[in-house]
């Protein structure tokens, strides 16, 4: 009932080449699921397939119980929001304008914003703490601020599912913490189901309700952070020398505990 998104026997890849087989993931309302794995393992491929950037090669994506293929573009837009790694280059758009594009599925024929849209946009901007920069030109702000704006854009899309591809990459420590805090808040207060890929394993225990590890051409392990982030699993997922996984893990969990205290 509460399954916001369900991937069922999904095969993903580029063209006809399958990267990952038989992906089964279920995310409930308010849950955050982290997707981890080596570079090129297929994390982005899964996320891009869900949002329709890549054609799925088999299986199905269910959104709130209905098959995505049978839904209209507009209904999908109202159900799934995203922040991907791709940089956008909008011309002469303020940060407010960029966030406002999230309201696209709700505005009328010519796209004018009504008071409700404006309230949603401003709320999202406040949520990510970008009130001060909202009238600045989007092309003239820093990467960290850009990521906040893109997150605010996804928030005001008011969708049940949020797909985030490496939302914390290339940000400094404080920005990473801020972004993850906002993501946790959205999941909790708006009951959004979040599926995000992430490279910084030390942040995973603080945010994830469930972790999915990819290795080879399949989902290798699924479970709580404690179950997934073990030395043996890391060695398999990241093709590390035997024994090194344990060493990393001991430090990783210490650091994670500190982050957990900062991200309650």
């Amino acid at each position, binding site marked *: 009932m509460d399954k916001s998104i369900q991937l069922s026997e999904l095969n993903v890849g580029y063209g006809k080449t399958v990267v990952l087989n038989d992906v089964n993931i279920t995310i409930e309302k308010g849950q955050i699921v982290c997707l981890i794995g080596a570079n090129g393992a297929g994390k982005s491929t899964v996320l891009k397939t869900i*949002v*329709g*950037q890549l054609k799925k090669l088999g299986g199905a994506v269910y959104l709130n119980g209905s098959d995505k293929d049978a839904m*209209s*573009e*507009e*209904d*999908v*837009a*109202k159900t*799934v*929001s*995203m922040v*991907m790694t*791709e940089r*956008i*280059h*909008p*011309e*002469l*758009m303020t940060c*407010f304008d*960029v966030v406002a*594009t*999230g309201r*696209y*599925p709700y*505005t009328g*024929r*010519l*796209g004018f914003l009504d008071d409700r849209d404006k309230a949603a946009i401003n709320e999202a901007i406040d949520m990510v703490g970008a009130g001060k920069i909202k*009238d600045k030109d989007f092309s003239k702000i820093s990467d960290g601020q850009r990521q906040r704006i893109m997150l605010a854009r996804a928030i005001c*899309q008011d969708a049940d599912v949020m797909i985030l591809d490496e939302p914390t990459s290339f940000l400094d420590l404080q920005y990473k913490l801020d972004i993850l805090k906002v993501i946790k808040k959205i999941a909790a207060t708006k009951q959004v189901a979040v599926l995000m890929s992430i490279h910084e394993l030390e942040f995973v225990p603080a945010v994830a309700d469930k972790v999915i590890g990819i290795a080879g051409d399949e989902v290798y392990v699924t479970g709580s952070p404690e179950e997934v982030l073990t030395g043996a699993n890391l060695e398999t997922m990241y093709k590390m020398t035997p024994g090194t996984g344990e060493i990393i893990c001991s430090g990783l969990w210490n650091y994670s505990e500190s982050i957990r205290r900062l991200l309650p």
Partner: protein
Amino acid sequence: MDSISRRIKIAFIGMIVLLVVFFFVSVGVGSADISVIDIVKSLVNPGEVYMGKIIISIRLPRIIGAIVLGGALSVSGFLLQVFFGNPIAGPYVLGISSSAKLFVALSMVFLLGKGVNISSLVLVVSAFVGSLIAMGIVMSLSQKVRNMSLLVVCGVMIGYICSAITEFVVTFADDTNIVNLHNWSLGSFSGISMDHVVVSSVIVIIAIVFTIVFSKPIGAFQLGENYARNMGVNIKYIRIVLILLSSILSATVTAFAGPISFVGIAVPHIMRGIMKTAKPLVMVPACFLGGAIITLFCDGIARTAFAPTEISISAVTSVFLAPVVIYLLVARKEAARG
């Protein structure tokens, strides 16, 4: 927010005033000068004024043609820039105008050779087919050539090839009707008739109305295909809309006035600078007005600067607008480096 919308209002009023002024100046100035009072009189009642006939049958079609087609060309350029996600795009620099020209010349030679009279609609359809073929070639090249500057070079080359073949066709066809093609093939409003003006106005108005109806998904497309899809835009559908609208607009221009250089690429850029926004709902009417003003101005120079000899309109637009294109190329290079 408010300062921008005020700026837009002032810019629109300014452009409308400028267009009206240029309109009267253009009607009045020429091999015979006509006063404003006579122009107004002759517009109301052509029989009453001595010069009425010149105004109505010679100058008016040409001037309305320059306004409508100049506007259409700029909107076409704006749509191409949205399509390629890049400000360095336009129907002329991508070879689309020249390909349209080639197809018009071919169908003229073929049909006139058979003794068939050519209607305005046949001209537009041939130009449209030529535009779509060039657009297809440029699109397939753009899959391979990611660099927009390189794509423009390819487009210019396509333009040269089409112009060369047109030259052959025009030179070796000795029909007197085709000899007149020479002026047109360089870009000129001199041969435009009231019939052409009516046909092109109808097509352009319909195309502009469609563009405004589609302004919301076109605006979403400016964020890139992937985010547009996530907003619920049907990407395939909107790509086709963009291709068809930009092609029909530039084809109409080429059918009646030949290839006009650099208006399509430079005017949208100038308008973005003036309006400080890229929103289609502002940019489409702004590009139309701006294109109309600049084309009317350039046609006035083409017609009067070396009177009685006329120069091609592309010669004038090149002088004024090619520097804008050079600036665009350089500025983008700078931005990429920074």
